[in-house]
């Protein structure tokens, strides 16, 4: 330290020195005295580097108060402010101090304060806004820009002002500054107009349209600004609008100012007068944006059209023409964005394709770029085509696509599958010709284009596959389709797997008089009729298997069944759906026990498929329930796989012991996940889940494995105690299995020498699967972890041997305040370091907490680069197997709450 202090007299500190200082500052074991002497050194020569370091230090060491920062008297005022403010990060800078610094003589200091107020330190909103608004009048352009940035930032942080008058004043001031001489000020003004304009609009529902229109016009008026960034910002701003009068929207597509706004009675006279005032600034703005020189601008416009087309059907129709023309754009990025926007329009029912659009729209199918073709098809998958001619040309152009780009086959097939499902009527209108072509190709001895035939088959069978009514589709079509199974099954992977598809096709090909009445959809029917024998190797068999019973084909019809129910409110629907699914495994248990695991597994896969489909089609509403259901199904699936091989009759002739061990391990992990990653269980639910865990351990005991036995028994006993205590509290009755297991356990010594495996075996006989009933309280515990700006090309720098800070952006869901969370950091060589995440330090609710945490990592080795795997784990019920770590760490096992993130680090040269 002494040495370093010597060479810091007047010269700026070398980067090497700074790095060393940084590691000292960040390392928790550095003494307070050393820290304050470093800080003192740093403040003596304030530069950007030292400031950065100081603010890092402040973030890491809350104990490092402002008292540690002793500023030299002769340092320039704005640096003083920066140093002060940097070291005050996360602390409260008092209002008076803020005001006095703002009104001080230094312009640079003022800019800094305005830019960072509210984000780096807190100021009372009333004062903050008044100061910011005031400084928009400053003669210095950069002060004006900073004040506007401050205002925009206030909105972005979710700030709101109830003082409508003030909001309006800020908005009006920003509107004036749209004509500022300085591009920076104009850019910031655009941001304020967008954010404050919307705040103003939402403050008064009577005036909402008026102000939204005004914001729209003001943003549009910037479409012709000479600065590219200003234009991008203006078009970006349009995205946020929730309402705009139709006549104004339409005006933005025409450079010619139309004489009068359309007299819409509903909108009243005021809209029309407002239109006259605003029309000139709006005129042609979107068109100008779309033909802008800079792709950034064109892309932004295309993106905004996504929102704007939602506001008016008429506008969507007109804008589509312009959007179609963008498909001739020289930039792939822009073409792609235009297509993405059309895709969104199609989803929200705003995409009405017309004859005149077809040349452009289908042109994209022969585009050289895969993404363009793919996105064009993505639209075709969801768009509703208005007439048969359109439908037919879509088919022709898709077939053409298949010709010129055979590599697109899978996706083209998938498009055909959707096209067929969405246009049942059109399919039935062309089925005669299609059938003739397919029949001629497959029955005759002529050479044919198999891709084309496969595509037509997919198109023809896709609708009746989900529909009870086959219509006029000849049954033999389904037989034809079976011969193409390997090629076409992917086109239906969104609704059923290959096996179900085969079963379904077989079913349909047999019944010529197929109708809905043949299928009994009543719940509670006999789910699993006994089969005469299994169909082994079924999954790899493409030949029609007549032994398949019809029950397997029920699943697709259930899909249809559920589609009918979609009118119900989403949440109720999910609960109902979940309970429907959750009831199934209970019914299946008997079949598992009797050794029909194969058949059960197939059904389980279908159920999983159904659940996943539901999961994807829903918003966040029922996500927790579905996540639980999926995991539960997975557990049952593993359980039935393991169970089968542990059945007395089969035990000797099954899987290798390694594979079984693998499955058991998987089962154990999944059950643990079920216990740890969900909260809000009722006592009965918890008992059910714990029983599954007990079962897993009991299964482990049955496996002839001596090595881990003591350990397993120990765990089993611990868990059993917990079950007993729950039973006591809830006065629920123990299941037979629990009772039997208790008997076995009481007779077994922990040291296991005398333990009788057969007793465990016997207890298994008593197990039966309980039915879960979902009440809606169960919450999914999860975390999101993100390290921004880090990838292979942008690694974090580190100095070998010194700690490095990894900035983790973390979002936690449903984590209770008592939970113990750890950040696990692992190197490839097996080194693992755990960091405790103290939840008290971060603000948020139990539902969601969002924060940034800079995680120090100490073991930066000599390697040039390192890959660190970071993950968030929750300490759970189960005790740690491995010995407690030297540097402290979780006492219990961690349930991982997110996917592992890779962080790339590379060594910087010290010199």
């Amino acid at each position, binding site marked *: 330290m002494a040495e370093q202090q010597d060479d810091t007299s007047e010269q700026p500190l070398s980067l090497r020195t700074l790095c060393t200082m940084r590691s000292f500052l960040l390392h928790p074991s550095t003494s307070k005295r050393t820290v304050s002497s470093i800080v003192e050194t740093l403040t003596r020569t304030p530069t950007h580097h030292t400031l950065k370091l100081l603010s890092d230090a402040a973030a890491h060491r809350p104990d490092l108060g402002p008292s540690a920062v002793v500023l030299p008297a002769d340092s320039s005022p704005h640096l003083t402010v920066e140093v002060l403010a940097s070291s005050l990060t996360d602390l409260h800078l008092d209002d008076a101090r803020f005001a006095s610094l*703002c*009104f001080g*003589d230094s*312009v640079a200091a*003022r800019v800094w304060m305005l830019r960072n107020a509210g984000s780096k330190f807190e100021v009372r909103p009333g004062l903050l806004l*008044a100061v910011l*608004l*005031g*400084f*928009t*009048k*400053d*003669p210095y352009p950069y002060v004006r820009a900073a004040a506007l940035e401050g205002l925009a930032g206030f909105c972005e942080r979710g700030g709101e002002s109830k003082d409508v*008058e*003030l909001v*309006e*004043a800020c908005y*009006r*001031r920003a509107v004036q500054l749209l*004509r*500022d*001489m*300085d*591009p920076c000020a104009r850019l910031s003004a655009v941001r304020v107009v967008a954010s404050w304009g919307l705040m103003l609009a939402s403050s008064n529902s009577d005036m909402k349209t*008026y102000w939204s229109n005004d914001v729209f016009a003001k943003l549009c008026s910037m479409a*012709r*600004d*000479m600065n590219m960034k200003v234009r991008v910002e203006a078009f970006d701003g349009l995205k946020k609008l929730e309402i705009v009068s139709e006549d104004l929207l339409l005006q933005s597509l025409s*450079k*010619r100012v139309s004489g009068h706004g359309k007299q819409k009675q509903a909108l009243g*006279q*005021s809209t029309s*007068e*407002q239109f006259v*005032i605003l029309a*000139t600034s709006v*005129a*042609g703005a979107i*068109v*100008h944006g*779309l*033909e*802008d*020189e800079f*792709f950034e601008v064109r892309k932004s416009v295309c993106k905004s059209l996504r929102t704007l087309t939602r506001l008016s059907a008429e506008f969507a129709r007109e804008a589509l023409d*312009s959007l179609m*023309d*963008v498909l*001739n*754009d*020289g*930039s792939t990025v822009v073409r792609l964005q235009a297509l993405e926007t059309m895709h969104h329009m199609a989803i929200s029912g705003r995409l009405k394709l017309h004859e005149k659009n077809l*040349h*452009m729209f289908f*042109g994209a199918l*022969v*585009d*050289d*770029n895969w993404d363009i073709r793919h996105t064009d098809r993505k639209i075709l998958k969801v768009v509703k085509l208005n007439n048969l001619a359109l439908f037919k040309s879509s088919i022709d152009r898709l077939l053409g696509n298949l010709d*010129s780009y055979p590599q697109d086959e899978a996706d083209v097939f998938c498009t055909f599958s959707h096209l067929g499902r969405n246009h049942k009527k059109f399919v039935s209108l062309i089925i005669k010709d299609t059938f003739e072509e397919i029949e001629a190709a497959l029955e005759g001895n002529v050479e044919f284009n198999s891709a084309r035939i496969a595509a037509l088959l997919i198109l023809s069978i896709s609708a009746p596959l989900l529909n009870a009514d086959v219509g006029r589709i000849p049954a033999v079509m389904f037989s034809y389709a079976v011969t193409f199974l390997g090629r076409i099954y992917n086109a239906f992977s969104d609704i059923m797997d290959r096996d179900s598809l085969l079963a379904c096709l077989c079913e349909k090909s047999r019944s010529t008089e197929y109708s809905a009445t043949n299928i009994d959809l009543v719940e509670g029917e006999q789910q699993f009729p006994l089969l005469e024998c299994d169909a082994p190797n079924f999954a790899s068999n493409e030949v029609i298997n007549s032994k398949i019973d019809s029950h397997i084909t029920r699943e697709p019809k259930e899909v249809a069944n559920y589609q009918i129910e979609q009118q119900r409110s989403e949440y109720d629907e999910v609960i109902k759906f979940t309970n429907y699914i959750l009831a199934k495994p209970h019914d299946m248990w008997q079949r598992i026990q009797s050794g029909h695991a194969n058949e059960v597994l197939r059904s389980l896969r279908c159920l999983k498929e159904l659940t996943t489909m539901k999961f994807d089609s829903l918003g966040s509403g029922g996500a927790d329930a579905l996540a639980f259901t999926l995991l539960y199904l997975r557990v049952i699936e593993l359980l039935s796989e393991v169970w089968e091989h542990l059945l007395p009759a089969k035990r000797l002739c099954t899987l290798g012991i390694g594979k079984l061990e693998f499955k058991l391990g998987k089962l154990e992990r999944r059950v643990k996940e079920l216990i740890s990653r969900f909260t809000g269980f009722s006592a009965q639910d918890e008992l059910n889940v714990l029983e599954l865990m007990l079962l897993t351990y009991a299964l482990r005991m049955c496996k002839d494995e001596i090595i881990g036995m003591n350990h397993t028994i120990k765990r089993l006993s611990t868990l059993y105690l917990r079950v007993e205590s729950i039973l006591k509290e809830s006065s629920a009755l123990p299941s037979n299995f629990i009772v039997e297991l208790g008997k076995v356990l009481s007779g077994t010594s922990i040291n296991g020498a005398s333990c009788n495996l057969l007793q465990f075996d016997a207890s298994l006989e008593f197990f039966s699967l309980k039915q879960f009933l979902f009440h809606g309280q169960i919450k999914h515990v999860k975390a999101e972890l993100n390290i921004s700006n880090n990838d292979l090309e942008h690694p974090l720098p580190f100095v070998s041997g010194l700690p490095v800070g990894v900035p983790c952006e973390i979002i936690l869901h449903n984590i209770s305040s008592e939970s113990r969370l750890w950040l696990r950091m692992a190197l490839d060589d097996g080194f693992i370091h755990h960091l405790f995440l103290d939840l008290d330090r971060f603000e948020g609710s139990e539902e969601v907490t969002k924060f940034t945490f800079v995680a120090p990592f100490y073991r930066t080795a000599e390697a040039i680069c390192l890959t660190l795997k970071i993950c968030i784990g929750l300490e759970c019920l189960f005790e740690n197997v491995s010995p407690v770590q030297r540097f402290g760490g979780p006492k219990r096992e961690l349930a991982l709450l997110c996917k592992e993130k890779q962080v790339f680090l590379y060594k910087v040269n010290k010199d």
Partner: protein
Amino acid sequence: MAIETLVLGAGQDIGKSCVVVTINGKRIMFDCGIDTRFFDSPTHRYPDFTLISPNRDFNSALSCIIITHFHLDHIGALAYFTEVCGYNGPIYMTYPTKALAPMMLEDNRKVMVDRLGEEELFSADQIAECMKKVIAVNLRQTIQVDEDLQIRAYYAGHVIGAAMFYAKVGDAEMVYTGDYNMTPDRHLGAAQIDRLRLDLLITESTYATTIRDSRYAREREFLKAVHKCVSSGGKVLIPTYALGRAQELCILLEDYWERMKLKVPIYFSAGLTIQANVYHKMLISWTSQKIKDRFSKHNAFDFKNVKKFERSMIDAPGPCVLFATPEKISSGFSLEVFKHWAVSENNLVSLPGYFVGETMGHKLTSNKQAKDDADTKIDIRCQVHQLAFSPHTDSKGIMDLVNFLSPKHVILVHGEKHKMATLKDKIHSELGIQCYDPANNETIYIPSTHYVNAETSDTFVRSCLKPNFTFQKCSSVDICNSTTIDKSLMPELQVEDERVAEGVLVVDKGKKAKVLHQDELLLMLGETKQDS
């Protein structure tokens, strides 16, 4: 002080742009063009330079000449003015204009001498002599012409190297646009300029009343027509000017060919056009952002699908696209090819721009029914597609530029008389800016800004550094005018910062003007009172 604008050409007219502006004693000639419609009459062809200096002492009368771009109606008279009239002063133009100007001037000289049999006014060597006087400038580079006169070039689009010029003498500032385009095309960007405090904007107004549709629509129609023609085996003839349009359309086609994987050959007629591509390749930094963005990967003027066309290929079978000069199909190669191809309805002639006079192009566009051409005895059966592409801004673009710059005065040049009058009224009524449309040889006087240099008192400077804003409630004027929105009754919150307004200009007799803070003035007045 006044800015004096003498319009020597392009006043209420298109052709021979030449405007002489006098600001604070400095005299600048913007553009020095000829009128190509009056090839046979030297008096109409050249601007009347004697109006600048009756005794023809141009060197002392002019501070400099500024040429905006290489089109003949902007540069055509330059060699005549320097070599025949004897102007020796500095001439400014951008690098690409300087590179392309000799070719344009020499072409024009040849036309006058060879075709019109005119007496040679100046030789090819003299053009070279003239070009030696040219100082090339970069965009946004501020040039100090002399102690008082500053000029700066801004990107104008239009053709490669085209620039708008900003000039400043003392406190008076102005911009002369030359020809410009406010929307980018495939190879050139849109005009780009800063917000300036202008006393005067002189702008072209070729399309004073036209509002053009989206460029995309025009491109779509063009591509559709060409694609349709070649995919049914037809030949497409695109008669075009060598520089500019040919490159733009070629980039468009090349891009489409790549995307659609078309294999049909695209030809350039020999000579000039290929040469022009080389120029564009060299001048890549003057093209549009798009082309610059892609430059690292691929020079957009390295046309992959373009081949050189030989005369022997005219009657070769199979579809193709051919670019050929001249654009008017009046003579030369394009006419020769036209005679061969126009007889088949499979073929397509795509005509860029508008035509005047008795040319084939004009006949085709003005009356498509006149299929049988009497003069040339061609049975015209081919399809004709007109390309409404123009490198000039439309009237909306002019309005947008004027609105963005918000100058105190606007002078319109380079347009048609009655349309300019319409635009003049529009600028005045919609933007509230004084606007003029002088005829040739007319002079316009407008007042200019003049700032007085004043000393400032320390108190005032200190006060200026201190923010001093206040909030007030008052009704704003623009809202009061609205009858329907009942806001006029509600006072509005406004913010004022009076610190600069607190300065008071004091001019004592015989002393330099000084700005004092108002408090100081009160104090001073108080003292004077006590004295008396």
